[in-house]
């Protein structure tokens, strides 16, 4: 009884704010408290907002490109790292760990200082580069354990049977580590979609992503269009998570 009550309260605490946020996105008036009637005004306003549309496009574009690039680089790098001499392996892994344990804000300013020192213009390119940069370590961390667990003899057998090292990688190693590559890609993608701090410091020239737009609007106070955007994002996220969960449960059963 106490157990149910406690967990009930916990989930009320975790979900009530999100539900309130979503409910008031359909409110007719600006008010975040008084329900005046159902309306889709804020959704219309959101869809008419050019800045939002651009931010949405940039968010997706950066996420897709940075995921593809970082998954590609991360996978092949991991295959290489695993063959390095222990000393260099330790160097690569330790430096690779930096962006993972460093506070986001430190990574953000370190990149900003790098781009400024190189006299780069802040915009799409710097934002994309930053996302690629912070995603690769996660791909490597996802792929490496799987690589270490692989049977080394298989790749060697392939080469003994006449495969080039390249063929051994593409035809023998990669198919075996595919699930971990997928995990890495998924991490890269969600982190890119979710990123605020690093993009905030390393974009410019009118290029923004959804997080930056939300931040800019939230700082000016409460706006129902943010509620509308939040509702859409939460709906998409929950659908994806639930579907992914269903799939993994079904897989586990079969």
């Amino acid at each position, binding site marked *: 009884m106490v*157990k149910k009550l*406690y*967990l009930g309260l*916990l989930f009320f*605490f975790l979900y009530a*704010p*999100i539900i*309130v*946020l979503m409910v*008031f996105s359909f409110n007719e008036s600006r008010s*975040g*408290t*008084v329900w005046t009637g159902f309306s889709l005004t804020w959704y219309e306003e959101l869809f008419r907002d050019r800045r939002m549309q651009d931010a949405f496009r940039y968010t997706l574009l950066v996420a897709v490109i940075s995921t593809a690039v970082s998954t590609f*680089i991360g996978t092949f*790098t991991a*295959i*290489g*790292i695993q*063959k*390095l001499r222990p000393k260099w392996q330790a*160097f*690569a892994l330790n*430096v690779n760990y*930096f*962006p*993972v*344990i*460093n*506070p*986001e*804000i*430190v990574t953000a*300013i*370190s*990149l900003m*200082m*790098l781009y400024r020192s190189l006299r780069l213009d802040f915009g799409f390119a710097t934002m994309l580069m930053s996302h690629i*940069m912070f995603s690769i370590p*996660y791909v490597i961390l996802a792929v490496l354990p799987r690589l270490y667990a692989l049977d080394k003899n298989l790749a060697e057998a392939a080469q003994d049977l006449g495969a*080039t*090292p*390249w063929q051994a*990688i593409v035809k023998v190693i990669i198919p075996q580590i595919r699930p971990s590559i997928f995990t890495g890609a998924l991490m890269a993608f*969600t982190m890119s979609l*979710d990123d605020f*701090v690093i993009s905030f*410091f390393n974009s410019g020239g009118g290029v923004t992503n*959804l997080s930056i737009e*939300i*931040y800019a609007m*939230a700082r000016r*106070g*409460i706006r129902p269009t*943010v*509620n509308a955007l*939040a509702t859409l*994002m*939460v709906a998409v996220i929950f659908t994806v*998570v639930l579907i992914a*969960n269903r799939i993994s449960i079904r897989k586990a059963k079969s």
Partner: protein
Amino acid sequence: MDTKKLSYPYLVWITLTILVPMLLIFLYSIIEPGPEPLTFQFSLAHYLRALDGLHLQVLWGSFVIALASTAACLLIGYPAAWFISRLRARSQSQVILLLMMPMWINMLLRSYAWMTILSRNGILNSVLAFFGLPEQNLLYTDFAVILGMVYNFLPFMILPIYTAILKVDANLVDAARDLGASPGETFLKVIFPLSIPGIITGITMVFLPSMSSFVIPQLLGGGQFLMIGNLIERQYLLTGNWHFGSALAMLLMAFILLSVWLMKRFDPKSMDSGEGVIPW
């Protein structure tokens, strides 16, 4: 072709994009412009400035806020983890999924949600008014910041503790009961000590992001409330004082390395148990 060469481009890349910028931060923190243009001289002034009255207050304040948030997460999270572990196996996985779902929502939106609730015209005040209670101005206070931290980071406390409790060998619990321990004693003397690694992981995973958070204090603390993250942001985006900003970043990193080291010393297994990547 030698397979290990595949990693060479990345070794160059991380040197350029990770090591060089870190060195830049370090360098900027210990120099200042010299008397002549384009000359620099060694200086510890930025560190001294970070430790003067006003800024020390910000550093101390960040520490206290992070500590309070971590304590609150532990107090709320431990019983939650315990109760979840006592559910039927099938409900457990559902409850854990339910616990993790909000973590997928952007932190900005989760903090914004509390803005709408805590603001003067927010839900909270209309509920209070309904019961004839006085209006509260909670938004843009320390309380709001701590609340936002707890809201955002609570699952990071619950999950590792839950995992640690699950790992406790049921035979040990049975043995304790057979030997005459009451349920309370079994918990205090067997289960709780064995769940300490989970607690330590949880503390690390809540304390570190709280300490360096910049979004939550900005949105829920408003303009007047500053934590070290906000102070660093100001140096880079507002005043353009990279030297001072770098010194602050160095202090933050030193503090975080120190905490991780302390946690590791306290429980060497906690960080390697793969209970999750540090969340920021």
